[in-house]
């Protein structure tokens, strides 16, 4: 990547621009925040130069998936739960499948586990690329969306599109479609990926490593807002590999729980004025997502990804929420390397045994996966015929909502102390919410 093709990062200094008069009294009402998935509002009230109120309110309409799931056959469940989210449908399908397989004592064949992991990599790459290039970059470029950048900064847009396309292609080859997977089923996968297409994936990954490198150089050149608020980071951990599907539930405050003890890790509660619930563990809020995974598992990343983290100033234990963007970038580097390895081992495998037969039965279990935005729990109780008796889904953004809320308060407070004006405060609050890459429809489900 040529440096001159980078965005003019000086645009960010607009946030520091004091040309507008400082107001001592104002209210900000950001209705339906843009460049995020779903509907959320930010409310800020300043009186006499002091922050009176700062709130993150989720106003998304609920869909009641936990109710819709009641009575559904196990076989159909992943096809319904994938519809919780248009961005992380593979994670939802796999969380359901894992919960049902654990509840009904089904062991999927090793090849299926490989295929599923590769599918998750595809989804996370697609999701992170969407967030980094479509939703975040405009804040630094001073544009309202990525669309003007297609003309003004074609190199960086092309790099982003190449990575996003690669993510989608990995998902399509492994699950039949990039959104709402077709072949992820209880017991394994219904169809093995085509070997020709796997070979093509190998070439594609190789060809797109320069785009990844260009993305790293670009994001390292951005100056992220200087803001720190200590919190507790929760993620999966298995001690052997960077987490994706299943494992122990760990927090940076030292809490360790078994997957089935997810309720003790989440302590979900309803919050007035918000259709999404909130969660907490050791403090009044906690965080899930790329930064939480990094803080708990950084030593398990591919060495190339660790190197990018070092170069970008990302070091565990990092409490700056804006560094979640960098953690996503670091994960993309890891994914490209790990996906290449997985594709190669799938090419060496006989892909004849891909699905275990099973008899539906009564059981109860939790399935936890690391969705792009963090740890995702599905919990099911089945009857003798494998139909759902009771369902519960706890979404990454639900686990981030309280943290987002307190970050909005803290960053507004800090910005006021620094003498920033209402426009600057608005921008910083919007940016801090976006840094979590919230998936709001998902959090309400």
């Amino acid at each position, binding site marked *: 990547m040529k440096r001159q093709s980078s965005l003019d990062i000086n645009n960010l200094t607009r946030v520091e621009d004091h040309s507008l008069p400082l107001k001592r009294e104002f209210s900000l009402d950001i209705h339906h925040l843009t460049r995020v998935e779903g509907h959320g509002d930010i409310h800020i009230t300043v009186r006499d130069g002091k922050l009176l109120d700062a709130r993150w309110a989720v106003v998304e309409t609920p869909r009641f998936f936990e109710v819709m799931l009641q009575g559904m056959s196990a076989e159909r469940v992943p096809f319904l739960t994938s*519809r919780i989210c248009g961005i992380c449908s593979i994670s939802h399908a796999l969380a359901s499948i894992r919960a049902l397989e654990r509840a009904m004592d089904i062991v999927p064949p090793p090849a299926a586990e490989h295929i599923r992991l590769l599918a998750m990599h595809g989804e996370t790459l697609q999701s992170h690329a969407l967030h980094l290039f479509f939703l975040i970059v405009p804040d630094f470029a001073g544009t309202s969306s990525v669309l003007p950048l297609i003309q003004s900064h074609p190199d960086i847009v092309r790099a982003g599109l190449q990575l996003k396309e690669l993510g989608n292609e990995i998902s399509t080859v492994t699950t039949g479609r990039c959104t709402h997977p077709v072949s992820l089923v209880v017991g394994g996968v219904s169809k093995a990926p085509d070997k020709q297409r796997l070979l093509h994936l190998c070439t594609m990954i190789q060809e797109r490593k320069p785009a990844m490198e260009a993305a790293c150089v670009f994001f390292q050149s951005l100056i992220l807002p200087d803001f720190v608020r200590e919190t507790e980071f929760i993620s999966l951990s298995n001690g052997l590999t960077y987490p994706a599907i299943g494992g122990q539930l760990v927090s940076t405050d030292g809490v360790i729980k078994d997957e089935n003890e997810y309720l003790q890790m989440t302590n979900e509660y309803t919050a007035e004025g918000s259709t999404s619930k909130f969660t907490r563990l050791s403090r009044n809020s906690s965080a899930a997502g790329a930064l939480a995974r990094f803080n708990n598992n950084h030593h398990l990343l591919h060495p190339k990804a660790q190197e990018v983290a070092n170069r970008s100033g990302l070091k565990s234990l990092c409490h700056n929420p804006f560094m979640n963007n960098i953690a996503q970038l670091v994960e993309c580097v890891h994914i490209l390397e790990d996906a290449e390895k997985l594709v190669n081992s799938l090419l060496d495998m006989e892909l004849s045994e891909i699905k275990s037969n099973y008899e539906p039965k009564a059981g109860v279990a939790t399935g936890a996966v690391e969705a792009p935005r963090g740890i995702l729990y599905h919990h099911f109780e089945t009857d003798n015929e494998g139909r759902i008796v009771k369902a519960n889904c706890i979404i990454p953004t639900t686990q981030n909502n309280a943290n987002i809320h307190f970050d909005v308060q803290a960053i507004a407070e800090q910005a006021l102390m620094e003498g920033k004006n209402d426009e600057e405060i608005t921008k910083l609050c919007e940016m801090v919410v976006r840094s979590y890459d919230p998936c709001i429809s998902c959090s309400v489900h």
Partner: protein
Amino acid sequence: MNLINTMKLKIASFDFTCCEGCQLQLANRESHLTDFFELLDVRNFREISSERHNDYDIALIEGNISREDEVERLLKIRQQAKVLVAFGTCACFGGVNSMKNRFPLDDTIKEVYGNMAIETLPIRKISDLVNVDLSIPGCPVSKEEVERIIVSLATGSLITLPKYPVCVECKQELNTCLFELGEICLGPITRAGCNAVCPAGKTACLGCRGPAEEINMPAFLELVKERGLSQHDLQEKLAFYNAFEPIAPDETSILTRYQ
């Protein structure tokens, strides 16, 4: 359908109760993306842009309606849009969200939110509330089909959806028929245009694109019966996207099991 005369289509995309997966398709097929957006003047698209203008001609409506504020938003959009598009299965038929309507509303709220007051209405598809000019079904919509329709709108050409069922596309792909594998597949009765993506992945078509135009429903039901396949499975599949309820005979209605 030559409603728009401008070179670039003044378009807006709005999401209601849904997963936003159909809107996301607009950002997919990355290698065609620059050309695709060349055809469009994006006036309002909250998910990817902070610009909000209300001078659009085409409005893509994703999702369904489940709260009073959504009704008001939709009516305003209808006033502005020259072409209002029901975008995706939720908008066209109600989609998976319609399963909520099988359960009493009070119990539904209580199960998820306990005693917290939550405003929610039974799910309604877009055409239950406003006139829809164009329907693009699919869960999610197929980006290729969307591209084709956008080009047709830009050039003022006729917009058509395949009238024949998924089965036709599936046979062209030489996929193994799921009925031969002992499964009920809605391919024989569902509108094509998805390239039979689900049966190609060896999972049953659940009918997200709604009924094909010329289908033989009695023969389809007879086929399921003849092969001794599960009536419960049939009910669950027919009701999955709420796209077949109006044509399914009473005995296959999923409602019977929940009442």
